[in-house]
Every structure is written in structure tokens, then in C-alpha cells.
């Protein structure tokens, strides 16, 4: 195999002067499975979007089967034999399996779609995948695994030679996963060129033979997978060193929130933990691990199937219904534009909106304007929100300032607990720093915070303790000074072979559901 079938050479891509990819090379041969790894924002998706024709590179060339290619659109890339199986499946739920497979190339006979042909061809392709879905079934009624098979079948139908899988297993159940791996192996035997993007380390070792790791838009390592172990890969993903600031760990103070055996079928499994006064507790996990779902479940946004939640009520822990947790907790979400802020309303009204009952005038019936403005002004000053005046509408603020307005809203109400889901997503570096300081300050004042973030640096900056979530369960509890590497290893579900410094004893195969040892900080 001297010449690789697919070669990308010197690929660079920048957006507004910021490089997302710098001079990246990639090559995969026929019958090879390449694992493309990297943390969030490392450039994996950009690289694959270039190959898939979604983006055009600023520099670099693509060679397929010895011929140089340029892609200006998705269909250019498809014509060159590239099939992209997206993480978010591109299927139309109300249409049939066969229709979905043929959607952009219906055969027409006598002026109408030739249904017999699409039925038969769809069935033939699905049969080669060993899949017995009825081609006339409506896609909405299929399981996640079957949907993915339909998408793979669609790619095969175009005679795609190169198959890109973006996080293919994130929505699959266990048995669906093993069936999926069989299919990958079968495709490999047919000399397909396969690129496999995933966060899950254990998966790549079972099905991939080559590996390439990206970090900050550059290749930080590649080669034959057998030459590496879990640790090597993680090191390549996150860089060698963690420069960790000294962090004061709050000693186990009194509990303010206790979650007991919380489950939601298929999403969360026996989630139990305690949150202490003044603690910043991080829920750490990869995208799709269930970290956000934990927050949603305990704040009553999603239904739960089992378990209960207790909060500290005048010194004693009392069980409360998830829907009532809101009385004790403020929720700061990543979708501030969608479910956090009232965009057309003024900053003042936004700040007061969670707290109107304390701002009533003497008649106890109407909101007193002066009180509302005074409360808002205090918060605006305390949080350094940059506005021209209090009547400015929230929709005109920058992302960082919008997030601060949400914080201000809850601060004026001062609930003992805060839930924060990606508190700094989409805000600039300065505002991010300020928000971090606000969070730390809250903790210092005795508020307790439960934080979810996909940025590992942010988590390490803030958290006193981590709960690592994987496949909807807590697989590990790590202390605040845990190393980046450990956080990555546990989150990727590879904790079993890590033998990490922070972990006491390695639990068994995480996928089989062994619980991580709950280890309290010293």
C-alpha cells in the first residue's frame, strides 16, 4: 500500500484571520480505518467539512485515487465518492426509508417516481448491511441505530468509496454499537476508505488501525494505532502539561442539595451526589454524555423515572419534587437567547423578572418602578454590565453582557444554589474572565454551584470537585486538583485502562456499567 487512496495535503483554513486548521496532512488507504481524534475545537469537523464539500480550504490540496480534486459543494464531494454520515442524522422523519435513501436521486419512469426500483434497490443495499428494516417504514418509527443504518445505506447507494463517520455511536444503544462495529469491519473488507471521528477512546482501539490527532488546528500525532496506548492519545489531544493554579478546596460543609438514585430511562442511570455549601461542583463529560440532562432533570425540565432530590430547608434536608427545585436554585443556561432572556425587554425588567414579588410597592399589588430600577442598578454595577442605560433592550447587548444580565437576575433573588450550563459559551475572553470571577465570588459567599461546561480549562479553573459523567451515569468522582489527563480519560470512557494517579483502583469496563468508586476529597 505505497500510495494512499485519499490524501489531503497542507490544508489550512482560517475564519476572519483566526486559523482553525494549519497545514494539516491526512492520508488513508483502501481498507483502512482512520481514527480522527481531538478535543472540542481542535479542527476535526472543519477538516471533514472540507472533505465533505461543506467548506472550501484556504490552502491545500485533496487527491483521491491519484487525481487532484476541488470541492465547491456537497454534491461535488458526493460525486467524488465521499459519503458523510453526520452526527445529527440528515433524515426526513415523516418519509419512508426508501424515499430517504433516494431523496436526491429519484429514478423517474413515465413522469413519476419509479417506486418499484427504489424499493428494490433500497432493500438490496440494506440487505448487504445485514439489516431487515422494512423499506416502506416511516423513518420516525425507527430506532437510533436503524436510522443510522439508513444513512449509511444512503451513502453506499451512491457507491461512496470514502466514508466519514462523525461521532457515529453517540446515540446508539449497546447492542446497536456492536452491530455497527461489525458493519464497519465488513466495509473495511470491501476496501472502503473509512474516517472515524469519536471522543470515545475504547472504541477506536477496537475498530481503527490508523490514528491522527488534532490539537488547535494542527496535527499533534499520527501513525499506526497499535503503537500507542490510551495515555499517549490523550496526551496528544490535550497537550503535555497541566499548569494548575492552587485552588482552595472547600471542606465538606453542610449539604445544600442531595440527589439520590436519579434515573431517566435511556438517559440517566442512578445519579447520586451531594452538593455542599460554597462548593463549585463540576459535571464533566463529553457532549452527549448526559451532563446537561442531569441539570435538566434535577431542575424539573425533564421528567424523571426514579430517584429523589432533597434540599436544605432551614437546616434539615427535605425531599422536594424536581419541579419545585427552582425555588432554591437559579438556572443559567447556554441558550440565553432562547430560554434565558426576554430579548425585547429592558435590562431592568430582565433583572427583576425572577424577583418581582420583592419589588412591590406599598399597595402590594403593583411593581414599584423605583425599587425595580434600584435593584437593577445595584446589580449592573456589581457585575460591571456594560449598558448605556437601564432601558436598553437585552437583545442589543453582547453575549457576555447578556449572560451577566441573567446572572444579575438570579443574584438579586439570591437562591442558595445555582445551576450553570455552559455559562460562558459564546462570550468574549474578557467577559469570560469576569463571569469566572463572579462564579468564584459566589462560592466564596457561601452559594453552591453546579457547573457544566465543555471547556476543560474552564472546569479546571472553577471546580472544587468533579463528577465525571459517561453514558448517563457517574463513572468517577475526581478532586479539584485532578489532572487534565485524568478528566479526559474518564470522560472518554477509557478509565478502565488508565490506572490513573488520581483514581484509587481501576473499575472494570465502563461500558458494562461498573460504577466508578465514589472517592471523597481529602
Amino acid at each position, binding site marked *: 500500500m505505497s500510495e494512499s487512496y485519499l490524501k489531503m495535503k497542507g490544508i489550512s483554513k482560517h475564519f476572519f484571520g483566526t486559523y482553525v486548521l494549519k497545514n494539516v496532512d491526512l492520508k488513508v488507504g483502501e481498507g483502512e480505518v482512520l481514527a480522527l481524534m481531538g478535543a472540542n475545537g481542535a479542527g476535526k469537523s472543519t477538516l471533514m467539512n472540507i472533505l465533505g464539500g461543506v467548506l472550501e480550504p484556504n490552502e491545500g490540496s485533496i487527491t483521491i485515487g491519484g487525481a487532484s480534486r476541488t470541492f465547491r*459543494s456537497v454534491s461535488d464531494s458526493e460525486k467524488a465518492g465521499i459519503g458523510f454520515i453526520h452526527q445529527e442524522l*440528515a433524515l*426526513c422523519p*415523516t*418519509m419512508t426509508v426508501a424515499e430517504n435513501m433516494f431523496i*436526491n436521486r429519484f429514478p*423517474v419512469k413515465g*413522469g*413519476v*417516481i419509479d417506486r418499484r426500483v427504489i424499493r428494490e434497490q433500497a432493500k438490496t443495499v440494506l440487505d448487504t448491511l445485514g439489516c431487515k428494516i422494512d423499506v416502506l417504514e416511516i423513518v420516525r418509527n425507527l430506532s437510533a441505530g436503524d436510522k443510522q443504518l439508513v444513512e449509511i445505506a444512503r451513502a453506499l447507494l451512491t457507491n461512496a468509496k470514502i466514508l466519514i463517520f462523525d461521532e457515529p455511536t453517540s446515540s446508539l444503544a449497546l447492542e446497536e454499537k456492536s452491530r455497527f462495529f461489525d458493519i464497519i469491519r465488513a466495509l473495511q473488507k470491501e476496501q472502503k476508505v473509512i474516517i472515524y471521528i469519536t471522543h470515545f477512546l475504547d472504541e477506536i482501539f477496537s475498530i481503527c488501525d490508523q490514528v491522527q490527532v488534532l490539537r488547535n488546528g494542527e496535527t499533534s500525532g499520527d501513525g499506526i494505532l497499535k503503537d500507542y496506548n490510551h495515555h499517549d492519545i490523550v496526551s496528544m489531544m490535550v497537550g503535555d502539561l497541566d499548569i494548575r493554579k492552587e485552588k482552595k478546596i472547600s471542606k465538606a460543609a453542610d449539604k445544600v442539595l442531595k440527589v439520590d438514585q436519579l434515573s431517566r430511562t435511556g438517559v440517566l442511570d442512578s445519579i447520586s451526589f451531594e452538593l455542599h455549601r460554597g462548593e463549585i461542583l463540576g459535571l464533566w463529560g463529553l457532549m452527549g454524555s448526559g451532563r446537561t440532562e442531569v441539570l435538566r432533570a434535577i431542575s424539573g425540565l425533564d421528567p424523571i423515572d426514579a430517584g429523589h432530590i432533597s434540599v436544605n430547608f432551614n437546616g434539615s434536608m427535605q425531599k422536594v419534587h424536581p419541579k419545585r427545585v427552582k425555588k432554591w436554585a437559579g438556572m443559567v443556561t447556554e441558550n440565553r437567547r432562547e430560554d434565558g432572556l426576554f430579548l425585547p425587554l429592558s435590562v431592568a425588567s430582565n433583572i427583576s423578572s425572577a424577583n418581582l414579588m420583592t419589588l412591590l410597592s406599598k399597595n402590594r399589588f403593583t411593581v414599584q418602578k423605583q425599587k425595580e430600577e434600584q435593584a437593577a442598578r445595584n446589580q449592573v454595577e456589581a457585575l460591571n454590565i456594560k449598558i448605556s442605560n437601564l432601558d436598553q433592550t437585552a437583545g442589543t447587548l453582547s453575549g457576555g453582557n447578556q449572560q451577566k444580565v441573567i446572572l444579575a437576575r438570579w443574584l438579586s433573588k439570591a437562591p442558595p444554589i445555582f445551576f450553570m450550563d455552559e455559562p460562558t459559551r459564546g462570550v468574549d475572553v474578557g467577559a469570560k474572565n469576569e463571569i469566572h470571577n463572579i462564579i468564584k465570588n459566589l462560592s466564596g459567599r457561601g452559594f453552591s454551584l453546579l457547573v457544566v461546561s465543555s471547556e476543560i480549562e474552564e472546569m479546571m479553573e472553577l471546580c472544587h470537585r468533579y463528577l465525571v459523567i459517561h453514558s448517563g451515569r457517574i463513572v468517577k468522582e475526581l478532586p479539584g486538583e485532578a489532572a487534565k489527563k485524568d478528566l479526559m480519560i474518564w470522560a472518554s470512557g477509557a478509565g478502565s485502562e488508565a490506572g490513573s494517579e488520581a483514581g484509587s483502583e481501576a473499575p472494570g469496563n465502563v461500558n458494562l456499567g461498573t460504577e466508578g468508586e465514589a472517592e471523597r476529597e481529602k
Partner: protein
Amino acid sequence: MGNESIAGIQAVRTKRNVKQFLASYGFYIIFILVFMIYSLRAPSFLTVTNIMNMLHTTVPLMVIACGIGMVIICGEIDLSVGSVAFLSNSIGTVLMVKAGVPIPLAFIVVVLTGVVLGAINGFFVVVFRVSSLIVTLGMLISFRGVALQITNSQVIGLPEALRAFGNFRIASFYIDIAFGLIIILLLHTLHTKRPYGRFVTATGNDREIAEKLGIPIRKIKFSVFVISGALAAVGGFFSMTQVGAINPLLGNGAEFTGIAAVIIGGISLFGGEGKLFPGVFFGVFLLTVIETGLNQMSVSPYVYPFFRGGIIFIAMYADSLKVRLRK
């Protein structure tokens, strides 16, 4: 997991299936019930003449509803149909009556006006990316204004030949029923059997997914508004010829009865789902049947809007119930 919980799950599933069945076919059950009740209460109801009369009355709205149906399947909405019907036929009538333009030519002008008005809607939705609700609501108001100006808000009688066409029948079969059925079946074929129709459905499923699949969603969206405009014009034409004159109320309220009929017929207001035939056909027919029946039972006409509103509410509720059941 014990046997009890499996039994529990099955019980839940059965319950769910029953609900799903009712949500999907409940409307046909209602249709049959209504038909039976009326047949028992009013002896003149279940006669060939009466059924033909009802179908005849249904034709204009059926044609208009086909256009709305296509737009809704595509994930948009068209509220302007009633005014498009009125404006295009106003122009046609004025040309025939005041300028002596021959009827076939005038009919072509009517359809072309519908196409142009639909294209205006589509243009704003696709090019300026204004929500179709806003665009077509604006056009609903302004097209009618223009038409009132053109007709001077007057009732204008049609040429004799056209009046004869509107109520022409062979035995008790009105000729326009045939035209109405041909139109709905043609559109049904376009929707279910042509790649174009599948693109419309895919666009209504999810704009972004459709785009990823390489479907030209902007062209598709534009085209459904054009189709809707043309069909509104044709539907208005049938309505006008049945009455024998154009009047200032032509097409008034057609958007809501049309949307109601479409939704009763199982086309989801959320887009991407449903069929024109038999769905829309029966949806429109049901509305006519109910009013005719009330009429034959000598119920006061002032009560009709109450029934119509009730049916619209039930249909919308069933639609949102269907969506919830899936989750």
C-alpha cells in the same frame, strides 16, 4: 425487569396505539358519524342530488385548499389565498365585462395573475426571508384592497356563457366537480409521485436537513407559493362562476376554512406530513356536509360559524396531540 413492568409497558403501548389510531383516523370516524346522523334526521340528506350539490359547493374551496396544503406541507403558510382569488378574478371580470376580452383569454389572465401574486408572496418569503405568516397576512389585506378598488366594491355580473358553465350539469352531476377532482388528483400525483413533491415534503420536514441533502429549498419554497396563488385564482374562478357574478366578499375567509380543511384532512401544521388525497378532499367535504346538514335540519345559519370554529379547534387539537404522542 419483572413481568409486571413488561405488562405495564404493553398496557401503555396499547393505550398509545389507541390514541394514535384515533388521532390518525378519528376524522374519518367523525365523517361517517356525521353522515349517519344527518341521514337519519333529514330524509333529503342521503340522496344523489344532495350529495352532488354538496360536492358542487365544495369545489372552489377544495381547489384553494390544495394550494394551501402544498404550502403547509412545505412548512410555510399562505393566508392570502382568499384575496388572491378575489383580486385575480376581479381583473378577469373587468376584462371580460368592461373590455370585452374573450372568456378563455380572461381565464388565462386570471390564472397568470394568481401566479404573479403567489410569486410576490414567495419572493418576500425567500428573498427577504420574512416569515410567511407576516407576508401573506399583509397580502391578505392589501390584495383585497386593490381588488375592491378595481371592482369599485360592486357586484359585477358575468357573461351569460360563463354563468351557464358554473352550474352546468349532466343529470345531477355538475361539470365543475370533474374539474375539481382532476385538479386534486393532479396535485396529489405531483406531491406523492414526482421528485418535486418529495422535495416539498423534505423541505417541510426540516429546512436544514433538506439543504444538507442538496435540495434547492429556496426554489421549492418559492414554487409552492406560486402553485398556491394559481390554485387560489382557479378556485376563485369556480366560486365566481357558481354565483354568476363577482362580489366583494369573494374568497372572504377562505384562508381559515381552507387551513381548517387541510388540517382536518391530516396535513400537519408543523409541515412535512400528510396527503392532499383523500385527506384534503374529505376535509373540505366534511365542512360542507356539516353546514348542509345543519341547513336541512333547519338550524339557524348564525349557528354555523360556531360549528365551524368547533371543528377547526378539534382538528388543530388533534394535530398537536399527534405530535405530542410521538415524543
